[in-house]
Structures are given as structure tokens and as C-alpha cells.
């Protein structure tokens, strides 16, 4: 029943998730969600010269939560952080050929986890004014 509601893409990313794991040398980490609601996503980034060289995730959650985490890591790998920030939950959903309506929040969580990881990197590695500019950009986008 649950199966039927998920696209083949979602099932593929759930059954064969890409980039699962953690990065010892991550310089940006974002965790969102909470166990009470049944979803936690943690994204690890290794960024060099503002380019995401490597990305991994760990997720506690349903099929959609795992699939959205997986596709989000695929979408950002190799991108510079400014382009990565442009990735929205809508893009995540489209890349998965859609999600059942009750699972849309999983795509939002993937976007939030990604943003949290990038901001974590930016805060630790960028100059204050650059970081603030990045934060502003995120704010105006929303």
C-alpha cells in the first residue's frame, strides 16, 4: 500500500540510497527534525573553495525521508554552495518524480538539512560579512 504511493524513483533511492554515511573530515554538518516526529536528517559536507566536494547523510525516518536525503546529496555533490542553496524542496520532489502529499514535509526537511549544513560550513569558514550576506540571501529567498 505504502509502496504503491511512492514513485519508482523514490523506491530506488530508498532501496539503494546514495551517499549514506558520515564524513570524518566534514567541515559543514546540519541536523534537522526530531525523533518525536519520526524524522531526523543529518547531512555532512566537505567543502573546498566553496565547492561541495563530498557529501554524506544519515537519516532516521520513513521511506520518503531516506529517499529525499539521498537525492538531495546527489543534487548538491560537486556544486558550489551558492548553487546548492538554490535547491528547494520542490526541486527535490521533482527529482524524485513526486511524493505522496503526506510526505511533502520530507522534501522540506531535506532542503532544511542541506541549508543547515551549508550555513554551518559558512559560519565556520567564511568571513563574517560573507556569511551574513549568505544568510541574507537565504532569508530573502524564503
Amino acid at each position, binding site marked *: 500500500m505504502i509502496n504503491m504511493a511512492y514513485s519508482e524513483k523514490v523506491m530506488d533511492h530508498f*532501496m539503494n540510497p546514495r551517499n549514506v554515511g558520515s564524513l570524518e573530515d566534514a567541515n559543514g554538518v546540519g541536523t534537522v527534525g526530531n525523533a*518525536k*516526529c*519520526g*524524522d531526523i536528517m543529518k547531512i555532512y559536507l566537505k567543502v573546498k573553495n566553496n565547492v561541495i566536494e563530498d557529501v554524506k547523510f*544519515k537519516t*532516521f525516518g520513513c*521511506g520518503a525521508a531516506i529517499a529525499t536525503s539521498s537525492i538531495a546529496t546527489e543534487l548538491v555533490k560537486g556544486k558550489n554552495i551558492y548553487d546548492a542553496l538554490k535547491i528547494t524542496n520542490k526541486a527535490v520532489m521533482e527529482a524524485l518524480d513526486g511524493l505522496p502529499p503526506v510526505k511533502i514535509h520530507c522534501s522540506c526537511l531535506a532542503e532544511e538539512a542541506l541549508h543547515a549544513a551549508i550555513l554551518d560550513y559558512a559560519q565556520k569558514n567564511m568571513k563574517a560579512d560573507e556569511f551574513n550576506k549568505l544568510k541574507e540571501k537565504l532569508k530573502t529567498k524564503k
Partner: protein
Amino acid sequence: MVYFDNAATTKLDKNVLESMLPYLTDSYGNPSSIYKLAQENRIAIENARSSIASIFNAKPNEIYFTSGGTESDNWALKCIAQAYQKKGKHIITSSIEHHAVLHSCKYLESQGFRVTYLPVDKDGLIDLEKLKESICDDTILISIIFANNEIGTIQPIEEIGKIAHEHNIIFHTDAVQAVGSVAIDVEKMNIDAMSLSAHKFYGPKGIGALYLRKNVKIMPFMDGGAQEFSKRGGTENVPGIIGMAKALEIAYKNLDENNIFLTKLRDKLIENILKNVPHCRLNGHRYKRLPNNVNISFEFIEGESLLLLLDSKGFFASSGSACTSGSLDPSHVLLAIGLPHEIAHGSLRITLGKYNTSKEVDSFLTELPEIIKRLRDMSPLYDEYLKNNLG
């Protein structure tokens, strides 16, 4: 494929299907008509009524056919309350009822009734002292689930009925999961009203019954015809009724033998999983539980992912996680027995049936630990646990 979701529904027994077939084909007469084609059906459904009544030590005119468990629960709760509202407006139930009872109670609250929802202990049992304490002068109805559909815990029904009767209160029980698995004597157990549903015991879907003691008043649920003693109008579901009677007959003829078989498989599952998979716990009472029910929570993982991975290996089971219920909260039953949300999300319910085999249980036990490990390896909660506990 391995079907482990027999609490959701069961596969129709071939002998039941056979008993129904004539009434889906040549014997199509409306039992309310007077000619032979119809009267044969009248006789057939009255025989079915007698046969069902005898299984529960009830009288034939105490069995009312309905569309299933949900209707029986709705009817019992709402229409008994309505019939006795001049006597009082207080109802007692438990916090682990099926939604058919809980939502009927919510409706009654909106109509000015007061409802007490008794808590349960960690095993899912209500406290009889608390039940006694919650009885008021105007309590008209006690409704307690016979055996819980999620965790399988069986309540002390006879004692609950005794307390109800000592206080002149009507006792209803939702026995949807118990019928077919537990011997039930409505006289001995002091039951005044009882809901059952055929598809839970290898009968067809869309047919159930309400047992209602003769002297208990109830308002009609469906107006329109004289069927079911003018309490539930509508042309009878003849093949369904015949099938339900047959299914019950088979279930109770083989009750002991079947229960020994199911209990053996159940205990093998419980003991093996608790022994071989770390960080898990059994939900529901270890012994006062349905012979076919296993409900286990696995820490650090979420139930829907678990079901999907099991599905991919050909095992069909269920979970009390929010993601499988379409809401944000995990099962109210798991929360009522005191599980924290995050552990309730990781629950797995396996409900066995007579068509399962020992081999199926073995292959499940082989696959499960690997699936749990796979999800835990993906879980940030498990990482955190390892970090905090293993240095």
C-alpha cells in the same frame, strides 16, 4: 510472499467461499419475500444466526447482523447511549480502544455525554480498581476492547463484566480481534454487547455482527426495514451471513489445535527476536496476549522503512509508526502503554494466521536482523547512541 498481517484481515477460507457461492448465484431471493426462492434464504440466515449464537452461548434473537466491526462498535456505543440517556450520561472506556469506539465516544462527548478513558499499564491492561473508582451514579455503559488489535493484550473481560453488572451498568466489548482466537461465553463473561467482524477469522469482508443481550435497549441504527428485529434495516447480506457462520464454525471447531500452533510460532518469533536483535522490546503482555500477535519496538529506526524493506523481501507486516497511519503521531495504543514517541515510531506488528508455516517464520527470523542493521547503519540516532555508550 509471506502474509504476516492477519490482524488487518485474513484470507478467505476455501470452505467458507464454497458455503457462500450458492447465495451469490442461484439462491438470490430476498429473504423478506414470501415465495420459496426467498424463504429458503430466510431459513438459511436464521440457521446461521442460531449457529453463531450457540458459539457464544447466546440466543439467536440476540445476534444482529451488521456490515462489520466498525458498524457494530458505532451502533453499540452511540445507540445504547442514546437509549439510556435519561438514566445517565457517563460512559467508561479505555485509552487503547479501536478508533471505531474512540471516535464514537468523541461524538458522544459532543452530544453532552461524559467519557472516562481508563489508562492502561505498561502491558496494556486496565486496572480494575481504577475502573471501580471511575463509576459514577450516572454511568450507563462500559466499553472495553476484548483483545487489543495492535499489541494483542487480552483484558480480564469476565471481571470487568462482573463489576459492570454489580453496578447495573451495561458492558460492551469490541471483540473484533478476539473472536475466532478466544473461547467466548457471553453468559459466563457477563457480556451484554459484543462486536465482531467476519474477515478477521477467514470469513468475507463487509459482514459482522453485534451480540446484544435480550433485555438491553438500543436505538435502531438504520431505519427503513423490519430486518434484524426492526433494529437495522436493509436487505441482508445473505452470502456474507452464511460465510460468517461457516467461518465461525470452522474457527471454533479447530480452536485449541490452531491456538497451540499459533502460540508456538508466536513464541518462537518473540524469543528469537528479543534474543538476537539488540535494543528492542516486546509491546503488550507476554502471556495475556492473542496467540497470533507479536509487537516489537526497535530503537533507532522508523517503522515505515522497516515495512518497506520487509516488503521488498516478500514479508507483509504492519507498524504503529506515524508514517503508516497518515498522521504525525504514532499509535495511541503504543503511547498509552508508555512508549516514548521515538520508540513507538519503530514498532513492528506481526500477526500470524493459520496459513502461515514454521518455515516462513524461520526465513523471517533469518532476514530481520540484517534489515534492522541496515536501517540502524543509516540512522543518526544509532550513531549518537554508539558515541554516548561506547566512547
